């Protein structure tokens, strides 16, 4: 029986994001992607950290693990190693993944763990009421800094490329069709995939709004970008975010779509213990350890 959107809805709660929050778009797109891929809800695990965005798993009827701020990635890696039959998707905010959790996804990328990282990139800490995040643009006024932000933002696409991610894409929460397509591809991709979705926060980010993005996003595929060329991908990614203040009259260009993809063996494939049977399906009863004692004589 095919999975329907209805199957993914829970009936005892509904999202509590602010009306108009970009998270809604990502939520809808993710459910669409699961339906389109025909995944069984019980074979999907959504793993998240802490933040507005990280609450998403509460509102999709799949398995879910809502862990600590910044730490969903290693949880997801452990799940994959334990049961490689599951589809595992990590959900985190720009703070969760780029600040507190900055170390983990880079390592997951180089290991090429077969899972998908979805960054809800609202360029701000939503849940803690609006401090700047690693993706906040230079020059933003913010309650967490006495002068406008001076730190160059993290360039997630470039970091992903540098760390060896094998599927690298940027989405936009205002375009459900593209977002659904990107998530679908990311899940289908064998290996580490990242979709960094620009997600307007209507409450705390009054700069990078839907209107702002609407005027600036464009689609890589429409420009004939070759997603198999890593250098070109790196070059495209250099366009935005800027590591300097905006010039007078300058207008940013925000590329969306698939920057890069590549085939490389996964971590799971490099783990012979689970080559045949997922770890959780293997019996651990009656292991004979007596032969080990020989070494102790």
């Amino acid at each position, binding site marked *: 029986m095919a999975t329907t959107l209805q199957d993914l809805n829970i009936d*005892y*709660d509904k999202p509590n994001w602010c009306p108009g929050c970009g998270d809604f778009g990502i939520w809808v797109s993710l459910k669409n992607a699961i339906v389109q891929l025909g995944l*069984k*809800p*019980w*074979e999907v*695990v959504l*793993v998240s950290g*802490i933040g507005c965005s990280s*609450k998403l*798993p*509460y509102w999709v*009827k*799949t*398995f*879910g*693990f*809502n*862990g*600590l701020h910044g*730490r969903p*990635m*290693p*949880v*997801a*890696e*452990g*799940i*994959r*190693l*334990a*049961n490689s*039959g*599951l589809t595992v998707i990590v959900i985190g905010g720009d703070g969760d993944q780029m600040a507190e959790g900055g*170390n*983990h996804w880079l*390592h997951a990328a180089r290991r090429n763990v077969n899972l998908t990282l979805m960054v809800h990139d609202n360029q701000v800490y939503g849940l803690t009421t609006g401090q700047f995040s690693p993706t906040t643009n230079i020059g933003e006024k913010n309650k967490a800094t006495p002068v406008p932000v001076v730190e160059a933002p993290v360039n997630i696409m470039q970091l992903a490329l540098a760390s060896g991610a094998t599927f690298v894409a940027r989405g936009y929460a205002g375009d459900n069709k593209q977002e659904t397509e990107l998530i679908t591809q990311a899940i289908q991709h064998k290996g580490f995939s990242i979709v960094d979705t620009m997600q307007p926060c209507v409450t705390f980010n009054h700069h990078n709004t839907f209107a702002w993005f609407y005027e600036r996003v464009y689609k890589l595929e429409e420009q004939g970008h070759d997603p198999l060329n890593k250098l070109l991908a790196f070059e495209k990614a250099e366009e935005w975010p800027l590591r300097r203040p905006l010039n007078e009259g300058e207008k940013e260009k925000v590329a969306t779509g698939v920057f890069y993809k590549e085939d490389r063996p996964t971590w799971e494939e490099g*783990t*012979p*213990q*689970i080559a045949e049977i997922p*770890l*959780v399906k*293997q019996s*651990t*009863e009656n*292991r004979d*350890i*007596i032969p*080990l*004692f020989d070494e*102790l*004589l």
Partner: protein
Amino acid sequence: MVDLQWLIGGEAGYGIMTTGLMMSKIFTRLGLHVFDYVEYPSLIRGGHNAYYVRGSDEAITSQKKTVDILVSLNAETVKLHMDELAENAAVIFDPSVIKLSVEQFPVSVRLFPIPLLELTKKVEADRLMINTVSVGSSLALCYKEFTVLEKMMQDTFGKKGEDVVAININTSKAGFDYVVENFGPTHVADIQAMPQKHMLMSGAEAIAFGAIRAGLSFAAIYPMTPINTVMTMLVSHALKYNIVVKEPEDEIAGINMALGASFAGARSMVATSGGGFALMTESIGLAAQTETPIVVILGMRPGPATGMPTWTEQGDLRFALHSPQGDFPKVVLAPGDMYEAFEDTMKALNLAEKYQLPVIVLVDKHINESHATVEIDAFKSLSASFKIERGKIVSDQEALSETEYKRYALVEDGISPRSLPGQQGGIALSGSDEHDEKGLYNEESAMRIKMMDKRFKKLDVAILNNEFTGPKLIGDPDSQLTIVSYGSTKFAILDAMRQLKKENISVNFLQVTYLEPFPSVVFNEMIGKAKKTLIIENTKVGQFEGLIREKTGYVFAHNLRKYDGRPFYPEEIVECVKQLF
């Protein structure tokens, strides 16, 4: 009666460790009781390493203070260890490397100048093999036949090929023969070989074996002294038993990987020391709140901070008990010897899954890195009698028939059956927020109280189920003095008790075997029967003493503490006890 301690000293990185272990195994093969102990600095080469091997035909469980045979590969060793030499001790050295005369020593010694380097040349071995020569010579000083060593070389190096076996036999034989020919055999002792009933095991090995036996499926371990051997052992047997062992990018990743694997249904564990444990603490709370089973092996070493990374202490007791924020149930087991390290690791893995909570096995450098002889049969039967208990996991069948599965159902015993990802009908979310029965975030007063009570209920149930055994009273219940302690101090305490017994001082030992939940009632009962009491621990501030006072009200009149990074020696305890009479 034989009770001799052999010591080899030399620069770090030149095979002292391998040589010492070889000596331990020889004694083991001769049927002696063996305990070995190593001191080394946290650097790879050049610092001073000292490997003590004690062998006895009576039961012993600890290193002792005096050295009977000293192998000094350099002048520094003599300088550093001169004061430890027993009356009439034997000193093996290479006269082409150092000059020694009996007058230099504070006690009378017997010098055994042996041309170690020359002998290696003679058998065409690398000069690094002087250690092996010295092992042969050492053996000759206390046992009459070379065959035991020959056999050992075959067993140990067989896999590496004939040549390796041969060169090892030749070098050690050269050392053995040189002693026999130049000084005569068995100068120090004349060991009467007994049938071998023991094997030689470190605490780290006991833990790794316990984990393997208990069905460990997943471990993510970031290297750190003193748990590196646990990691290495698991790695070496990973393919044989299909255990996924990964080295994560840091300890936070390590425990979260393990939690992920556990959540997915794999029996999981991590191992670390204080600094790495600090990084894991937040996630221990996560395990508690999501009720995800996890076992943490915590190997203590002296802090604060990096402190003395290759030494021993018990200074993490309170840290283990009280991390991180908030009230939640956890279990802390504290093995005191290799048997208990083996059993407690197995038990920990059962408890974590049965009660869906974090279980810490608290050990230290002294137990992890020392080797002791243990009875092979005892281990076989511990292994045979152990049963894996995975607790309430919903079967696929049950999950399917669920209409509205509740991950955190408020059941009587507090233990809500777990579903596993992949199970149709078992869909659920586990979250770090306080939640309702279905797992949905919930901050209502009544629900909060119910969920807190539910989590703690599990610990009450575990107690009711008699999951915890101990404290143990070891020795004559009517003794004049009761020593109270926990963990690796057991080694020296038991040894001290034996010595005291010989001097007709009867002391018993109340060993606290688990620290959380604390066995207040039983402890009070037992301590109530004690005449005089002495508490022993490897800390400066008396963390364990404070814990007992908190949990039982009991106040000790006497304590013995140590915080210089060294374990207790039986002699120190004997002396302390005597002063109390």
